[in-house]
């Protein structure tokens, strides 16, 4: 699961970043994308296209791996055997998504070891929502339903992008996400239609998660960096606000349907514009959290590092000294 790529504003217009590219090759490349064809690993591509894609696919991969941590802690405490099995399957899926995506990013020239190092040293980003704790079982239910729902909106859009290996990974991922969504919805419905105590639990979880969910698609288009070229190259497939609108349109009615409320008095659909209106989430908080100051950032990275350290002796025992590095094919 995954929110939106956090595109860093380096102060440069993307157009100026293609200034050094061969204009004929650039024109052919853009024509191929405009015609709906995919770009494959060994094709010529602008340096900026490669850089932005590596960053985006890598962030996505990290999000799958780190995203499995808050849910993973609930496996031992999930109520009942069936939910434990289902949650284990979901967590395994997410880890698998991470691996598929690392392989896709590797085809662009960055090794999995480098990506993992950049994750655990805090150099790379991942989706902001996973820096929050899953306090109760209801949090785990809300994550599986609504965070995965948000991820599906994003992943479906990106699967229509221009880079072949990323699209292929996303198609496989989207197929599996439908189980996550159903499983999460089932858990939320079970609590929302249960005892007053259970309803209270799920309402509390919703209140806690609403701001991170609103942050999930990234800052409003009004304040985000110039993304025209990335849209033209089909690296970014929809604006942050458009994806947020799609999400609100699909899920707010389903939440209200269960008699649950959302902690935003201004949230409503404007019948004239067909758009959702809401209180602008606090983007200062978002920036603070994504830059390492959220409630769980340090713990998430430490757990990831420890897993790598704990597994090292097994990997060392299996290491083949004659191995040569070759990027995966596609």
């Amino acid at each position, binding site marked *: 699961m995954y929110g939106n790529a956090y595109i860093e504003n380096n102060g440069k217009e993307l157009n100026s970043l293609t200034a050094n590219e061969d204009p004929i090759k650039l024109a052919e490349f853009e024509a191929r994308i405009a015609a709906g064809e995919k770009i*494959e690993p*060994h*094709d*010529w591509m602008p340096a900026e296209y490669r850089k932005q894609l590596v960053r985006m696919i890598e962030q996505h991969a990290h999000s799958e791996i780190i995203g499995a941590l808050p849910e993973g*802690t609930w496996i*031992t*405490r999930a109520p009942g055997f069936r939910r434990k099995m289902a949650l284990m399957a979901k967590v*395994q*899926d997410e880890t*698998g998504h991470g*691996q*598929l995506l690392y*392989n896709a990013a*590797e085809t662009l020239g960055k*090794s*999995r*070891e*480098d990506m*993992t*190092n*950049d994750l*655990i*040293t805090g150099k790379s980003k991942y989706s902001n929502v996973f820096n929050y704790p899953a306090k109760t079982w209801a949090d785990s239910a809300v994550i599986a339903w609504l965070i995965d729902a948000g991820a599906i909106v994003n992943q479906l859009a990106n699967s229509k992008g221009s880079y072949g290996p990323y699209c*292929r*990974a996303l198609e*496989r991922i989207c197929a*599996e996400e439908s189980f996550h969504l159903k499983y999460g919805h089932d858990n939320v419905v079970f609590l929302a239609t249960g005892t007053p105590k259970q309803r209270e639990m799920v309402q509390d979880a919703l209140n806690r998660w609403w701001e991170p969910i609103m942050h999930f698609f990234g800052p409003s288009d009004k304040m985000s960096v110039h993304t025209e070229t990335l849209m033209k190259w089909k690296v970014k497939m929809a604006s942050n606000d458009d994806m947020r609108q799609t999400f609100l349109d699909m899920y707010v009615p389903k939440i209200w349907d269960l008699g649950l409320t959302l902690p935003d008095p201004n949230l409503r659909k404007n019948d004239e514009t067909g758009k959702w209106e809401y209180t602008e989430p606090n983007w200062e908080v978002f920036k603070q959290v994504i830059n390492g100051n959220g409630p769980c950032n*340090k*713990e998430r*990275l*430490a*757990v990831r*590092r*420890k897993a*790598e*350290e704990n597994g*090292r002796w097994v*990997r060392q025992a*299996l*290491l*083949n000294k004659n*191995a*040569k*590095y*070759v*990027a*995966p*094919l*596609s």
Partner: protein
Amino acid sequence: MKIKSLDPRVTRSNIDEDTQEGILNPLDHFETYEVFEQRKRGIHHVHVGSVHAPSAEMAVVFAKEQYTRRGQCVNLWVVKTSDVFVTEYEDSDIFETTVNKKYREPDAYKVIDRINAFKERNAKQNA
């Protein structure tokens, strides 16, 4: 060791949260293997992706976990990525075919006009 609780909020693993260094060296996660899956008997194996693994045997184990979790597979092949010889997209003109190779296509063979003319001629002769 006796575990007091399975709740990770109670039993903490006391991990040091302040290490700054990267800990992986090149190839610590092994080479990659390309994975080919046959979904049922009678159809071709199809390339589905790749896995990192220290050997072909482990590649099969990882490929089974990664690509066949939901059944629908009867056979797997794995092959080291470095052993696959590939063509470049840049050279894809080698697959172009020209009009003078039309004789390869089934629709280059049109016999019906000739058969009809032959039948007509015969009919006239026998009339």
